[in-house]
């Protein structure tokens, strides 16, 4: 597809829409949208540029599965899970120290579970199969190269890179992910802004399942999720480690403009992490299975595009719906939630005979009424706080030194008092106690 192909085709006649809807992208958002439409009895085609659903997709990753209740009852019996996350840890680190907040819950290992590690080549394929079973038509290895418009400029389908590859429909559901060229072409999204994006680079490492069990204190299907702060040489972001059945996923997420400015190569930061004294013992003997990279829209609520226009709506990462409320990312659940809502809205619009922006507007109100936009609105200031200079560059070291000061036995020198210790450690890291208090209040406001 050339840039020239992206120009709307003028004067395409609006007669005979081939489908009720064409959904672009068989990621979680697209498959959920196609599923909702097919279940409502609508004709829907699901277009995916990869050879199979999931083949272009990369995440951490943990899927928080409760949103699947609406997709399949007792989904946990059939979803392609690697491990159920029962332990979740946040590690604040310097080059040689780490402090972890480690939470473990037996309940997370039981139905309906809290989170699961799974790989996208399997998970996305499973979800797309659900849509196909419901009656959606999946077309893989096909790129939607641009929008089709009628004489009035209304969107009436997409062009693809197949021969005679025009797909006409009442509505286009753009679920084409973080770079969404369709949302940009429709004028819903401003040109890409690097500062609203992070780059994730990931290594999947082979490690036998029983070794993972022993090293991480897990049994059989139990998994752990570790998020790390302070391991990215001051580039705003963080690290992650997730256990799969017989692999470990490990990587870093990095603010794009800061990465570019730092002139550090991303895989160097993964190497740092793997060599860290708190991480290296977990990985001893592990070998690289696959290296991968993908962008993340981390700007949150305030950077979301307009979500509907005449004949089209946008869901999932294409609408910047990844939630970065903490160091972990929730994107798949938000993509599924928004995809289902998009499918329902299109069904209602077709029933009412109005697929204009007005006819599709119930999509937005539906999202506002459920977790998708409610959570995003609530945590709208979280991305800025989590990526802020003090959280990123000063607090991990400050916390490590504070704990070091409390735990290191200094006999025969008497132990320092708590207040004196805090003040001196804070000063060493260039933080005033007043700022510490102010940041605590700010955090309570953002997350409270």
């Amino acid at each position, binding site marked *: 597809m050339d840039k020239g192909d992206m120009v709307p085709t003028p004067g395409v006649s609006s007669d005979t829409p081939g489908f009720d809807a064409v959904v672009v992208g068989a990621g979680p958002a697209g498959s959920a949208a196609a599923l909702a439409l097919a279940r409502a009895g609508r004709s829907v085609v699901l277009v995916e540029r990869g050879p199979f659903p999931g083949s*272009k997709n990369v995440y951490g990753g943990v899927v928080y599965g409760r949103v699947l209740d609406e997709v399949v009852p007792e989904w946990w019996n059939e979803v392609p899970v690697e491990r159920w996350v029962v332990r979740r840890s946040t590690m604040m680190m310097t080059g040689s120290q780490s402090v972890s907040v480690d939470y473990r819950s037996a309940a997370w290992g039981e139905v309906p579970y809290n989170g699961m590690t799974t790989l996208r080549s399997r998970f996305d394929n499973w979800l797309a199969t659900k849509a196909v079973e419901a009656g959606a038509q999946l077309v893989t290895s096909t790129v939607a190269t641009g929008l089709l418009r009628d004489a009035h400029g209304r969107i009436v389908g997409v062009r693809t890179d197949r021969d005679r590859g025009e797909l006409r429909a009442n509505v286009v559901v753009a679920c084409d992910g973080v770079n969404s060229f369709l949302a940009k072409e429709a004028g819903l999204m401003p040109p890409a802004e690097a500062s609203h994006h992070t780059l994730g680079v990931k290594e999947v490492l082979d490690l036998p399942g029983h070794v993972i069990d022993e090293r991480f204190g897990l049994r059989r299907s139990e998994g752990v999720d570790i998020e790390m702060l302070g391991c990215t040489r001051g580039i705003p972001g963080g690290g992650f480690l997730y256990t799969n059945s017989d692999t470990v996923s490990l990587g870093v997420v990095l603010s*794009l403009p800061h990465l570019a400015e730092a002139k550090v190569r991303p*895989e160097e930061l993964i190497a740092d992490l793997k060599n860290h004294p708190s991480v290296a013992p977990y990985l001893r003997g592990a070998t*690289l*299975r696959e290296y991968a990279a993908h*962008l993340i829209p981390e700007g949150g609520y305030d950077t979301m595009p307009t979500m509907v226009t005449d004949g089209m709506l946008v869901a999932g990462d294409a609408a910047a719906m990844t939630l970065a409320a903490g160091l972990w990312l929730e994107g798949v659940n938000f993509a599924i939630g928004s995809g289902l809502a998009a499918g329902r809205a299109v069904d209602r619009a077709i029933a009412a005979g109005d697929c204009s922006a007005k006819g599709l507007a119930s999509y937005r109100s539906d999202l506002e009424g459920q977790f998708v936009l409610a959570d995003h609105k609530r945590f709208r200031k979280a991305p800025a706080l989590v990526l802020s200079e003090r959280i990123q560059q000063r607090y991990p070291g400050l916390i490590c030194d504070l704990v070091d000061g409390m735990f290191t036995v200094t006999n025969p020198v008497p132990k320092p008092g708590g207040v004196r210790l805090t003040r001196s450690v804070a000063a060493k890291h260039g933080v005033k106690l007043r700022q510490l208090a102010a940041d605590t209040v700010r955090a309570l406001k953002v997350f409270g």
Partner: protein
Amino acid sequence: MSAAGGVPGSGHEVPGGTWRGISFEDRMATVEFRVGERAHITVDSEVCRSCTTKACVTACPANLFAPTSGGGILFNYEECFECGTCYMVCNHEGAITWTYPDGGLGVVFHQG
């Protein structure tokens, strides 16, 4: 640890237990690419000559941007993750023309 016996050979790990030893070639050899004939991304080296940041060179996770002695950029599209980092960090209008590879081609992740 007793379980260490079950761990496969040291593979990409170099003696001394550090991970710096993975060559970039070995790293990229773990990824499947179905390379098409059309270059889905092109770089106008003329524009790059006046670029002071050369941000793409370090940021591209696939390391596909090679600076030339003349101050330009040599780019090869073949082993690209299709991530979008390059066009987002590049602030020179017209330097990068970015599209997806044709359907079914390009990177295929199995462990994403």
